[in-house]
């Protein structure tokens, strides 16, 4: 894996954005993870946060200490980093199994989506449950995972108008799929809901996910949804991760 292909620029007056490419891919995920780790392991003075995204890593600095020369220092750190690193072998990663109920009252956008895609709902559900997804990044809301890649046949740009999405809603937009960790307005198409929590301010991990995670969706009935919701609510995120989500 090449480490030395990047562009670097300021984002505002106290942040630096490192761009590593312009396409979402598992290889890019590895690069983003490696750069995030490199910076976190060699923190420059005043570093407050490291925010990995699909193809970029953004560094936030204390503005009292920030100087434009920080950009050159980070560039030098990246340029001096080893050029190749081992690519993550996904077979080594555990898979988080996420139960999803695609039945009413969930999946509030399924009818409209089915109409737009000219696909029966059963086909959308089956397509959505086919791939093993990766968590590429978190953003938007605490613990909102940006996962990909959604099968092409069910890809559709985000909704024209944002609407209310309830906590647990599983949604898609373009090649991405995600889960609303809390009630929120949002522009993604809601196709189901998971009974598992993915954000808990009292949990030591705070969120269920980590970038790089592998995820599979398992369709469940409404009855099973309620059962799992009852059983799972006392489990910590560490427990859920150890048991691979909620394998059925």
């Amino acid at each position: 894996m090449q480490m030395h292909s990047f562009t670097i620029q300021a984002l505002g007056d106290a942040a630096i954005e490192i761009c590593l490419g312009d396409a979402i891919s598992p290889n890019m995920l590895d690069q983003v993870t490696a750069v995030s780790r490199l910076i976190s392991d060699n923190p420059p003075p005043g570093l407050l946060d490291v925010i990995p995204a699909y193809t970029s890593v953004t560094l936030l600095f204390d503005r009292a200490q920030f100087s434009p020369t920080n950009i050159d220092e980070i560039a030098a750190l990246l340029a001096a980093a080893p050029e190749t690193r081992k690519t993550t072998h996904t077979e080594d990663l555990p898979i988080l199994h996420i139960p999803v109920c695609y039945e009413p009252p969930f999946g509030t956008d399924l009818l409209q989506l089915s109409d737009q895609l000219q696909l029966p709902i059963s086909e959308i559900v089956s397509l959505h449950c086919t791939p093993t997804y990766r968590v590429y990044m978190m953003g938007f809301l605490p613990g909102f995972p940006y996962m990909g890649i959604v099968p092409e046949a069910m890809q559709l740009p985000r909704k024209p108008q944002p609407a209310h999405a309830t906590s647990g809603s599983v949604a898609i937009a373009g090649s991405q799929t995600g889960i609303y960790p809390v009630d929120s307005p949002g522009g993604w198409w809601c196709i189901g809901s998971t009974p598992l929590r993915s954000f808990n301010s009292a949990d030591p991990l705070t969120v269920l996910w980590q970038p790089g995670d592998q995820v599979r969706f398992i369709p469940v009935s409404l009855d099973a949804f309620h059962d799992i919701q009852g059983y799972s609510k006392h489990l910590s995120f560490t427990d859920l991760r150890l048991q691979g989500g909620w394998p059925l």
Partner: protein
Amino acid sequence: MMEVVQAGLLVTVQDAGRIGYGSVGIHPSGAMDKEALYLANALVGNDDNTAALEMHMPAGKYRFHVDTWIAITGGQLEPLLDGTAMPMQYPVLVRKNTILHFGKARQGFRAYLAVAGGFDIPLWKGSAATDLAAGVGGWQGRALQRGDRLPICQTHQPLHVRPSLVTPDSDQIQLSDTDIVDCLPGPDISLLEPQQQKTLWSTTLQVQPHSNRMGIRLRSVIPITGDLPSLISSAVVFGTVQLLPNGELICLMADHPTTGGYPRVLQVPYYEWGKLAQLRPGATFRVQRTELAAAVLRNHLLLSNHEARRNSIRLAIQSYLV
């Protein structure tokens, strides 16, 4: 303890915010006008980053159940103690059972109420800031409601304050001229056609009514139209100005999400944030281009001036501690 007798429109517990958890998507939250928050805290002898209230009009009505020193800074929302005008930008001793309410919003948009010792609010991830989107932090993760009783930390209370020692300098308390806001070019500005860029730097922007703590919505009097590519989501920060598909701009503020996918066309530097935070819906301004090195210098100057001012205020107060 301070009791909410009548709820305000959006009164939340805030401090400097929750920085360092962007990788899991936790919003920074915190005060919109950070320098006003820090000043309010200094005036009652607190550390800058002490939990205080951020208030919008209508700002609500409160009863103090203990004797406490308070200070209100930021927008001039006409605070009244038992019906009598209370000075702003100044420490005031409030006696038990006093009622604080507000008259008219005369200038600015949001104010900060600090109490000596600070509100006793449990920290979540190192901050007392209310995260409204996630419903965590602050006071039960939400805006204050009627009947809430906020505990106040016990502290040494300043007994006497000599006015001359704590009159804040005029630069800090007067809201600056908001006709012009300095901006840096954003990382995605080159996606705009040269003509669109020219428009952006010369147009007048108007603050829209659906602005909130997440962002100030801006409409350009000269529409900035044209197809813009949809981008791969990446990090955004306080002050990032995104161009939305409908031509509206949003300047991200305290409750901004950590990432976004709209073109980041401008970036408002820190020293201008207080101005933005005090703009009311309908206010207009133009943007003026500045460069990174100049903006960083201005930031450092503002930070050190304000810090020196707060330190002298704290010294003035300390010499009158019980």
